[in-house]
């Protein structure tokens, strides 16, 4: 009973309470490991597009920390790690974004907060940003369409949709019908997530 109440309290916490920090040292490594422990195999599989067994995958932490050339940001809720976004740049002027949100914090705005924070970095303004999403991941699909700079579907593969955010200078103009109307109501953001990149 106590556990149920505690879980409900956590699930109703809003994204406004989040703190976002950059993953840069040993302390954050520990937090990333704690986040992985809060993610179900299904969430990890959605992030990596393959089955993942957290305990058996010795290199899972390396993958979640991301490449040295990229950046990673953690979302903390009252000090607890609840989400992670990775930006992985290639030498070709492209950046792939991957998002992971702990199961109990999905659909609470964690993914949106992380993605908006990460993409606000001017470092990526001249790069093409890619995101890959599974078609059934409706929460993330809604998120991508309602970002300050909406992402565009550019390609598909079995079970995957590829979205792209063009560099600021060449971002496509709105269609003849005008800009995309806002969502009928604020979408709680992305959780189940994820995208991967």
């Amino acid at each position: 009973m106590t556990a149920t109440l505690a879980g409900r309290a956590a699930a109703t916490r809003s994204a406004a309470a989040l703190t976002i920090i950059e993953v840069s040292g040993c302390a954050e490594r520990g937090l990333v490991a704690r986040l992985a422990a809060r993610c179900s195999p299904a969430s990890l599989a959605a992030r990596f597009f393959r089955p993942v067994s957290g305990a058996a995958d010795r290199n899972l932490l390396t993958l979640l920390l991301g490449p040295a050339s990229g950046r990673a940001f953690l979302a903390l809720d009252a000090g607890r790690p609840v989400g992670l976004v990775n930006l992985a740049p290639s030498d070709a002027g492209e950046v792939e974004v991957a998002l992971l949100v702990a199961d109990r914090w999905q659909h609470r705005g964690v993914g949106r907060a992380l993605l908006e924070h990460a993409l606000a970095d001017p470092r990526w303004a001249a790069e093409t940003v890619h995101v890959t999403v599974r078609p059934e991941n409706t929460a993330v699909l809604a998120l991508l369409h309602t970002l300050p700079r909406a992402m565009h579907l550019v390609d598909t593969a079995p079970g995957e949709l590829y979205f792209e955010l063009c560099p600021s200078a060449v971002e496509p103009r709105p269609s003849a019908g005008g800009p995309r109307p806002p969502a009928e109501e604020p979408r709680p953001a992305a959780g189940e997530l994820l995208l991967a990149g």
Partner: protein
Amino acid sequence: MTLRTVVAREREYDWGDPAELAREAAGRDGLSFLLALASGEVPAPPFARTTGSRLVEAEAGRVVFEFQPAEYHYNPIGAVHGGMFATLLDSAAGCAVHSLLPAGVGYTSLDLTVKFVHAITVESGASGPLRCVGTVTHLGGRTALAQAELRGPDGLLYATAVSSMLILRPPAGTAGAVTE
């Protein structure tokens, strides 16, 4: 000008049908295929036979190649050719990514950036083979990034590399299409 007489060294080696090996690779998930390579269940690929390198360890996201430097790896100025470094680093980075891919999903290298730290000679491997470790640092839906390190038996770092790879998923409706 007179050219000195060259004392010939000879080396013989063989290899298996690469098409057969490629078919074997396509039918397995990456890790099980690499484990089969490491154990000798399936024959080493031609490049490994040519260079004398071999895959010795594989796990999800990490692989290890061993390499014994020899005269036949040398460039004209008395050390192992830089292309040999790149071959090992590219193999380790690529196979590390392969170890995370389901059956039917392929990959290809997009780039490889190599940092040469020390020259390699035959003496570098006097106390044992060099080891080249590849580790995946990013796995996404479309691209993967990996790093690799080449070290001597004493731990001396000879070279590092980073590489990005394009993940190749089969078209919908084809055998091996990913449905997970």
